[in-house]
C-alpha cells in the first residue's frame, strides 16, 4: 500500500495536550513539515515559550529550550550567536510575544537576528484561562474584560506585523490564517519562506498565524474558525508585509 499521508518525521509520537479543535496542532504540523522538507532536523533548535505552547518541546523531534515568559527571542539570540549554523526558531503566543515579551521581539527584529519566529495570535491568554491579550479585539469578551475590550480603557489591539515592518532588520513578515484549507496551505508556504530566509542569512523572519481558541472563546471549533474569518481577518489583514531583498 502506498502511504498518501503521514505524520511528519519531526513530530514526536506524543498525544498533544491541546484542546479539541485548537489550531496549535495544525501549526505544529506545518512547522514540522517544513523542517522535514528543508531537512533541518539535525540543525534545528526550537524555543518553547510560556502559554499553551509551553510543551512544544515535547512534540518536536529536534533540540529545544524552554524559555521564560516573553524571553524566547533573547534565548534564541543566545543560541544563534553560539551556533550560527543552527536553524533557530521560537514558537510564541500573543501574550508571550506581544505583551510581556514586546521588548525582546522588537529588539531581536531590530538587530535583524537571523532567527525564525512562529507567532500564534488567537487574541486571548489560553493557558491561564481566557484573560484579555494585547491582541484581543475591541468588544471581545475575556475573563479580565467581561464587558468586552474597551479601547478607552485598555487601548486597541496591537498589530505585530505592521509594527515590526518599520524595522530595517526585518527580512520576512507575513500574516496567515488557519481558519480554512486554503489558509493552511498559504500558512505552510509562509512558514517555509520564514525558515528559508534564515537559511539564506537574510535576517529576522516572523509568521503570524491567526488561530482560534474554542475553549476560551466559548465556541464550538467550527464556530471559532468562522469567528477568525469574520472578525480577526478583518482587523488583522493577511498577506506578506516584508520579503527578503526589499527594504534596506
Amino acid at each position, binding site marked *: 500500500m502506498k502511504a498518501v499521508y503521514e505524520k511528519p518525521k519531526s513530530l514526536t509520537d506524543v498525544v498533544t495536550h491541546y484542546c479539541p479543535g485548537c489550531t496549535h496542532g495544525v501549526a505544529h504540523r506545518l512547522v514540522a513539515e517544513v523542517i522535514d522538507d528543508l531537512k533541518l532536523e539535525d540543525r534545528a533548535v526550537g524555543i518553547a515559550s510560556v502559554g499553551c505552547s509551553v510543551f512544544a518541546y515535547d512534540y518536536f523531534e529536534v533540540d529545544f529550550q524552554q524559555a521564560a515568559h516573553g524571553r524566547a527571542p533573547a534565548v534564541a539570540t*543566545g543560541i544563534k550567536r553560539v551556533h550560527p549554523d543552527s536553524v533557530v526558531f521560537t514558537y510564541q503566543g500573543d501574550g508571550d510575544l506581544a505583551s510581556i515579551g514586546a521588548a525582546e521581539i522588537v529588539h531581536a527584529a531590530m538587530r535583524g537576528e537571523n532567527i525564525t519566529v512562529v507567532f500564534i495570535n488567537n487574541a486571548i491568554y489560553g493557558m491561564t484561562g481566557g484573560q484579555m491579550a494585547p491582541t484581543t479585539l475591541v468588544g471581545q469578551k475575556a475573563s479580565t474584560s467581561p464587558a468586552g475590550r474597551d479601547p478607552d480603557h485598555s487601548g486597541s489591539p496591537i498589530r505585530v506585523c505592521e509594527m515590526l515592518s518599520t524595522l530595517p532588520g526585518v527580512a520576512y513578515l507575513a500574516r496567515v490564517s488557519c481558519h480554512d484549507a486554503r489558509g493552511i496551505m498559504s500558512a505552510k508556504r509562509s512558514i517555509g519562506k520564514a525558515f528559508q530566509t534564515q537559511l539564506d542569512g537574510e535576517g529576522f523572519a516572523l509568521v503570524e498565524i491567526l488561530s482560534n481558541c474554542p475553549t476560551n472563546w466559548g465556541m464550538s471549533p467550527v464556530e471559532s474558525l468562522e469567528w477568525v474569518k469574520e472578525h480577526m481577518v478583518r482587523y488583522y489583514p493577511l498577506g506578506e508585509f516584508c520579503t527578503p531583498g526589499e527594504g534596506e
Partner: protein
Amino acid sequence: MSDLQLFKGNEAVGEAAVRAGCRHFFGYPITPQNELPEYMSWRLPEVGGVFLQAESEVAAINMVYGAGGAGAKAMTSSSSPGISLKQEGISFLAGAEIPGVIVNMVRGGPGLGGIQPAQSDYFQATRGGGHGDYRTVVLGPASLQELVDMTYEAFQIADRYRNPVMVVGDGVMGQMMEPVVFPDMAEVTDPPDWATTGKRGRDNFNLINSLYLDPEELWEHNRKLNDKYRQMTEKEVRWETRATDDADFAFVAYGTTARIVQKAVEQMREDGHAVGLVRPQTLWPFPQEPFDELSDRVDGFRTVEMSLGQMVEDVRLAVQGRVPVQFYGTTGGVMPDYRDIISAMEEMMRKVGGRR
C-alpha cells in the same frame, strides 16, 4: 615579575573571563561596571567571540540562558538594580541546569540608590534572589588578583555543577587598578553532550527545561538540584583567616571591607590587642568551619559590612550563640573608616569583656 599588569577591576574581569574560555558576553550599561562590557566589546571579537549589548538586563540574562544551554561559556554583568532584573533568568538557569557567570559590581540601594560601592546585595546574592529552591555559588573577592582568579574559576565551577555562579564585587573593585597576573588562555572546549546544538546525528533530542508539572517529578528534580547544592557546600566553600591563632576577638568581613578591616587589625595588633579576621571568600556556601573552630577560643565576633547588616545573619547562624556577635556597618558610598572599625571593636571588648 614581568607578567604583572596594572588593570582596572572591571577590565580585569573581562580578561580573566576570556582566559577562562568565555566567548559570549551579553550586557547592558549601568554604572559602576561599564568598563567590563566596553572591554568585552573589542576583546571578544579579537578571539572569535561575540559581545552583544542587549535591550535590557532581562534580555541579557536570557541570552546567557540560550548561549549557555547551547553549550557556550557565557557571561553577563551588571550592578545592583540590573542584577534585580536578572533574577528571573538566574532562577531559570538554576532550574534548567545551565552554567553561566553573573558579575555584580554592587552599588548602593534600595531602588536606584547610588552609584558608589556597597555590599547591600548580600541577601539577594546568597538567598537566591529569584524564585524557587535554588542556590548559586557566590564568590566574594577582596583584591583584583583574587577577582581575576575567581572569575576564571567561576566558569569552571559553573560547568562542574551546571549551575550559575555569581562573582560579587563592588564599585571599588570595579573601578580600582591593581597589578594582576592573568592565568594562561584556556582552550575553548566543544559543547557538552547535553547542549542544544541541533541533533547533528544524535538519535535523541536535547532539551533545556525547568518545567515539571507533575509534583512528584518536580520533587525529584528539586532533590537532584539539592544534591548538587550539598556537594557545593562541601567542596566549594572557601575562607581565609588572618591573625586568629591567638585572637581574643575576631572581625568578620568580606570583599573591599575586609581590606579595610585588615588595616584595623594591624593597627590594633600594634597597640597590643589580640584581634584577628575571618574573611569568607565564598558568600554561599558560607564557611561554617572557622566559626566552629573560633567560637571556643574567641570572646566575640564583630562583623563589618558596607550594608546595614546582612552577612551578620550568616555569622550568627554559624556561631550559633556560642559567643556574642555584633555588627558595624555603613551604607552605599560611605567606606567604613578603619579607626571607626577599631572603635567599634574596642567598645565590644569593653562591653563583652574577656571570658578568661
